């Protein structure tokens, strides 16, 4: 196991950090315009042949990483796991300003559940220098929201989820995180893993210079074996969670719809009267 170098290099006496290296775990998913279907045989999402994009939730994590490194020095590395379709999203993160990227690309990892995914990502993160790992709180296509916490455990760093504001001072990190009733202010030390809520910022659009520059940036490619994980730990074979059946729920019968011709509000009032609400 390789230790996070930049963390070990920081001077603990002054608490000052020379640079803040940030690894962002992000997913590349079918574009939001695509209506996702499930494959009846594999019971997985149909990801082939549809346009892909960097998950907007991951783009927010990249943006946050860029803002922090612009302030404190250091660089952002994007790590993603996915098929070759993920390349477009990786390029997007590089064009936004990430310095390099890691792509876990291996047929053997297809069908990984959350735990398998977290093991792979954690193993890839350990190969990088990092002070801070940023993720989205959840992906915009499967929303399980537990991968960040799993990764944190495998890395042995504290997890903080649902961040809506992050600030770093020395090796102290302060996070405002959403709560059921408002927000909490929590504090931890680096290295740490923080999962960002997607409203944390407005991700920048890549500029032409960034897009051109992205072509020259390095994308490291790892297989599960490169990361020291055997086939029974990852992919469908290693998955603890098995999907048994997929089905369409009974569709709610669509009711009446009218086009507003100046009476729309009144018609709703009529409907409310009809169901005896008013």
């Amino acid at each position, binding site marked *: 196991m390789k230790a996070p170098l930049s963390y070990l290099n920081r001077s603990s006496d002054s608490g000052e950090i020379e640079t803040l290296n940030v690894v962002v775990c992000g997913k590349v998913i079918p574009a939001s315009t695509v209506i996702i279907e*499930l494959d009846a045989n594999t019971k997985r999402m149909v990801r082939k042949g549809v346009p892909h994009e960097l998950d907007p939730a991951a783009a927010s994590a990249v943006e946050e990483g860029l803002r922090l490194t612009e302030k404190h020095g250091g660089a952002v590395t994007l790590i993603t796991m996915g098929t070759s379709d993920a390349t477009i999203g990786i390029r997007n993160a590089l064009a936004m300003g990430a310095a390099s990227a890691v792509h876990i690309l291996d047929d053997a990892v297809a069908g990984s559940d959350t*735990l398998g995914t977290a093991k792979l990502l954690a193993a890839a993160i350990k190969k990088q220098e990092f002070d801070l790992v940023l993720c989205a*709180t*959840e992906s915009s296509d499967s*929303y399980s*929201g*537990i*991968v960040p*916490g*799993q990764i*944190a*455990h495998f890395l042995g760093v*504290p*997890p903080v*989820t*649902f961040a*809506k504001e992050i600030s770093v001072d020395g090796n102290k990190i302060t996070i405002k995180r959403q*709560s*059921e*009733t*408002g*927000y*909490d*202010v*929590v*504090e*931890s*030390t680096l290295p740490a893993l923080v999962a960002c809520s*997607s*409203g944390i910022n407005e991700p920048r659009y890549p500029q032409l210079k960034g897009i051109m520059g992205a072509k020259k940036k390095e994308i490291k490619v790892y297989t599960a074996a490169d990361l020291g994980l055997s086939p029974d730990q990852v992919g469908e074979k290693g998955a*603890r*969670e*098995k*999907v*048994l*059946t*997929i*089905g*369409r729920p009974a569709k*709610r019968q*669509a*009711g*009446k*719809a*009218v*086009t*507003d011709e*100046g*009476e*729309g*509000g*009144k*018609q*709703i*009032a009529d*409907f*409310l009267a009809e*169901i005896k*609400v*008013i």
Partner: protein
Amino acid sequence: MLAKASEAGTAEAILLGPAPDDAVQTLAKHGASKIYHSADAVYRDYLTLPAAETVAGLIQKHNPAVMLFASSYAGRDLVANLSARLDCGAITDVGDFQLKDGSVEASIPALGASYQNTSTLVNKGTKLLVVRPKSFEPKINEQPLSVEEIPAASSEGLRKVHMKERVVVKREGPSLEGAKVVISGGRGLKGEEQFAILKELADVLGGAVGASRAAVDAGWVPYAMQIGQTGKTVKPDIYFAVGISGAVQHLSGMKTSKYIITINKDPDAPIFQYSDFGVVGDLFKVVPQLIEELKKRKGA
């Protein structure tokens, strides 16, 4: 969850951190035959890690068939840590589950509302399930009070994420979860100020105002108002979706409402498929007219 668990087998509960005095009684009243309890402040003052240490210890000691967690911030954080720590699977967003000979079959809405799947966990030992709010009706199933005081997690290494301050953002009107009428706004509202007309409609109908993730992400309204898979789940008598297209994320938080009324300018918006009554039109014309009409009829 206790109602479902005590129906499926013997239900026990874990209560960690400072809690109201009657919390253990409440658990016993709803079906917990035993409560593992520690009131230590470490669980309140440090996130996730102390609770995970304690719960992992209890799982290893008692080896329950299934462990249920609420789909809350703390619930998801805890499950994430436990599944990695114990190397066992976890299913999130569970709507219902069955136990069969030590194995579990969970039903989960996938891709929002568009699929209903069943999943199982094949790991040995305890299965971790994160349950959607309002999946089970609470039942009174009074058990004799049996409390085991457990030692608090004391290791310094677990005190890594320190809770410095809890800020409560005040809200007015009925709570979203309890309201009979919920008026939600989405991207179509175009900005923060425009939510005022939804508030006005909510006041006329005695309802609460909610929002889609798009509106929350845009920063127009606080996260506490978000309805959907990652926000609140509501089940009102009447749900108004105003300027909300009906993304899967949103649908899963409101589709079991009794009546759904939609106002949207796009006739192809998926939300119309779920509506009992829909108006295709400009919400900024339709909503004020509706408010005026309701006031008129009320006055009559």
